[in-house]
């Protein structure tokens, strides 16, 4: 008996430590391949405005801004939509409809991103071109639409859990003061679910900024600096799409190769900051207000 427990415990330990070990290993690998880029190119070049690897111009600014543009667009679209859907599912829909909608949202989350990218190319981008009357339908906006669609399930289900975790007493208190159902949702339930809702947004952004396939297929991949207000409706190129598109053709050990890894480090840093902010919100919000959404 003793021995068996010892073996099981040892196995669990090994499993736990190897998970940590592999994370560290990946991180070290990323560093080893990416960091040389910082001395192989000048800072002016690396953070410059032009990305022409053939001419040794490795300006990552258009890529960073491209990622931010597409992601921000996605958040602006997905946040109100996701929140409204969560409120609808939890507060307004009759019981039978809720039972249908909840699993439907989970199914949404399971659609492979390459399928969505394909849909975006053949169905969404022609619509974008016609409606907005722009030269090509492969724009940052098209990417935002696809990303918004992809982050919706995350936003909806996390926000829904947060709303569900608001104690019934809060609602009763507001209703008994003569608040309408709508005032109760807007002024009591949503503020009480605030930290959960913020996490929903953060997770949504995290998902969106790291997404590659669908974005690469629909944004047109032109590495240009967004300058005018209408940049959203022109092609753009994200960090993820750049890595995915160019990694296969680059000579291993070349500057271009190192720079692609360095872009990976940037992406990692951005995602890390977003996750850190999200968990800070959870800690500050406390378990009661954060609800049970982080399990």
């Amino acid at each position, binding site marked *: 008996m003793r021995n068996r427990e010892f073996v099981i415990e040892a196995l669990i330990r090994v499993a736990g430590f190897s998970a940590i070990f592999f994370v560290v290993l990946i991180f070290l690998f990323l560093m080893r391949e990416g960091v040389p880029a910082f001395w192989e190119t000048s800072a002016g070049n690396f953070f410059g405005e032009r990305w022409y690897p053939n001419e040794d111009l490795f300006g990552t600014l258009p890529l960073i801004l491209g990622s931010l543009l597409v992601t921000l667009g996605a958040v602006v679209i997905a946040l109100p939509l996701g929140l409204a859907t969560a409120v609808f599912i939890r507060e307004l829909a009759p019981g039978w409809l809720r039972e249908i909608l909840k699993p439907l949202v989970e199914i949404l989350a399971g659609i492979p991103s390459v399928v969505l990218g394909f849909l975006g190319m053949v169905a969404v981008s022609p619509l974008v071109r016609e409606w907005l009357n722009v030269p090509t339908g492969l724009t940052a906006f098209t990417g935002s639409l696809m990303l918004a669609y992809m982050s919706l399930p995350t936003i909806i289900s996390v926000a829904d859990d947060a709303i569900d975790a608001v104690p019934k007493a809060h609602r*009763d*208190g*507001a209703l*008994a*003061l*003569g*608040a309408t159902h709508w*005032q109760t949702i807007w002024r009591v339930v949503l503020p009480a679910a605030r930290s959960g809702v913020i996490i929903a947004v953060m997770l949504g952004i995290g998902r969106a900024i790291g997404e590659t396939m669908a974005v690469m297929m629909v944004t047109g991949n032109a590495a240009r600096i967004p300058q005018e207000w209408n940049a959203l409706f022109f092609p753009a190129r994200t960090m993820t799409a750049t890595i995915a598109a160019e990694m296969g053709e680059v000579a291993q050990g070349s500057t271009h190769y190192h720079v692609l890894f360095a872009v990976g480090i940037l992406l990692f840093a951005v995602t890390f900051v977003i996750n850190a902010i999200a968990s800070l919100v959870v800690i500050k919000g406390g378990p009661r207000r954060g609800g049970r959404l982080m399990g």
Partner: protein
Amino acid sequence: MAKFTVRNLTFRYDDHLALQDVSLDIPANEITVIFGPAHAGKSTLLRCLNRLNDLIETEAIHLEGQILLDGEDIYAPRVDVTELRRRVGMVFAVPIPLPLSIYENVVYGLRMRGETSSSLLTERVERSLRQAALWDEVRDRLDEPGVLLSGGQQQRLCLARTLALEPDVILLDNPTSGLDPLSTAKVEASLRELKADYTVVFVPHSVQQAARVADTAVFLLNGQLIEAGPGERIFTRPREQRTEDYVTGRFG
């Protein structure tokens, strides 16, 4: 004259029968105490009086019978439910101040009704805090967060924010459950003063408290009304054996 008249009220949650053919009158300007053991249906009855049960899964609840407020059926289709809830205020067992200042907590219901005149709001704040016997303790710190008050003060704050809406009726569901004896005494004292202007319906946390505050007492057991009448009679010479058993502590 009865403020509320409840006629043959039957109430179900899903298939659980919570109230069964309950009929009673709730007199104006009195404290009516509704008492009985756990799960007797006291909270359910209270929540029928301001239609707070309306929002639970509309298809699952089921209400039969009639409730008249000043002779008008409160479940009639044309009744404005939010307006009804302003006329029939409610204080709960656990005080939940909003994450706002004391002042803003008190005027919250008024603001939601669309009241903006700051002189009216300020005047209401003082008046309702005085009525709730809290004014002297908080007059100098109205802009501090309401959640910083002690439990007893929070409960009186919740009473004040209900009073600020100038309701006709105040429903209190076990408002002193978490309070020490001193705070409990303060709440009871303010209720006795309030009954001059309001109709008070009160679910007590013990038979002793029921006996202390009741003008009229109503004994509920398993969703049925066993006995109702003047407080002094119910607690000294009950007519029903089950009431006597309960008030003398033989069960429950």
